[in-house]
């Protein structure tokens, strides 16, 4: 029977200098990482740039990997930190897009129904603060509040509070739609 090497074993081997383990680990997680970057940024091009940044920095970041820690949690923390860096740069130079705020003009919907859904998603995301978007990106990726808190460096209670705020914002959006 063929044994599948765990993520944690690959990460430890990669941290010790095993290039094949590193390549295997990245190949295994790239698609999920890219999807997470998209949820953090709201545009394909920003997600691609962010993923590229992370790929370039990942070998050095392996030094921060704690043995036996969940690889996804560590990887998402790296991604969130890289996203925050990009946002700071964007705030400084104001030369990039606003991510979710600009999404609707960057994406071509193929039909009206899809277009309406995307509009709703864009409106919903753009109404949330950056902290709430980050939190949602993790929770919508099926992370528990505890895991999301670990990634974002806040308590589980803070994540629960943020999710409550996100739900309020979505409810308000729904009520607004009902009036119009």
């Amino acid at each position, binding site marked *: 029977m063929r044994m599948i090497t765990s993520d944690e074993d690959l990460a430890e081997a990669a941290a010790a200098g095993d290039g094949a383990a590193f390549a295997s680990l990245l190949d295994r997680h790239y698609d999920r990482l890219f999807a997470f970057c998209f949820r953090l940024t709201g545009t394909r091009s920003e997600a*691609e740039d962010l993923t*590229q940044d992370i790929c370039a920095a*990942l070998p050095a970041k392996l030094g921060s990997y704690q043995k036996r820690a969940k690889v996804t949690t560590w990887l998402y923390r790296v991604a969130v930190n890289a996203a*925050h860096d990009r946002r700071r740069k964007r705030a400084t*130079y104001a030369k990039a897009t606003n991510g979710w705020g600009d999404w609707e003009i960057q994406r071509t919907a193929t039909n009206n129904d899809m277009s309406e859904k995307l509009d709703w998603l864009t409106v919903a995301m753009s109404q949330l603060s950056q902290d709430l978007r980050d939190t949602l990106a993790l929770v919508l990726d099926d992370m528990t509040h505890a895991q999301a808190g670990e990634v974002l460096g806040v308590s589980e209670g803070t994540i629960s509070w943020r999710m409550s705020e996100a739900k309020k914002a979505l409810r308000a959006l729904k009520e607004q739609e009902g009036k119009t």
Partner: protein
Amino acid sequence: MNDDLNKLKSLMDDATPKPDHVRRTAHIALAQDSFAVFHQARNAKEAAPTGTIWQRASAWLQSGPAKGLVTASVLVVAASLFLETPPSTNQLSAPVESVEPAQEGLVAEFAAPAQMITADDAPVAARMAARSVAVQTSYDAIRAALLQGKLPSQSDVQIAEMVNAFAYDSDTPEIDANFAEAIESFGILLRDPQAVGDKGYDDVIARAQANLGPDISGQRAEAVMLMRLAKDLSQ
């Protein structure tokens, strides 16, 4: 999860694109290159000779790559430094070549290339690799022009690329942002000296100098040196 969140998750799942195959391959290749550079630097550090700075400098000057990089002018400056503080085993005997006074200090400042870096510096090596691979920065073109004693042409100065080349360091984000801002102003100055109003080279240099951060690779200090060189050349 309530209905609103379920709706959001469903829409988000539908909206999330698959990665482009070509970019996926390129990103993984970039990561592997960065990985190789990172571990080469780490291995080199482990094998690095110990000793005084003078012993290490002498060893470096005799190494193959260094011979190609060090000009006679640099050796003149280095030799003068050695004479002021003679090491016990000074093996420098390079022929003397005249150095223009205005350039002499600058040449001395550039006498320590990346090979001299022996700090706890493996992450920096990865960043440098990432810079050269992922960001086709204009920094090298600017550096080359300035070291040849001329200001770069405007087409050499790609400001966004310069900023990207220096801005990323997640350990010190605020300092990074400030330093990157100084780099941006520097780029603007090179392209159009009138564009930044009163914020001339002195201001840019002061801001960069105040936001060097850990700079264990010395790249940022080198950028400040380039700013000083550009200032000298512009006068």
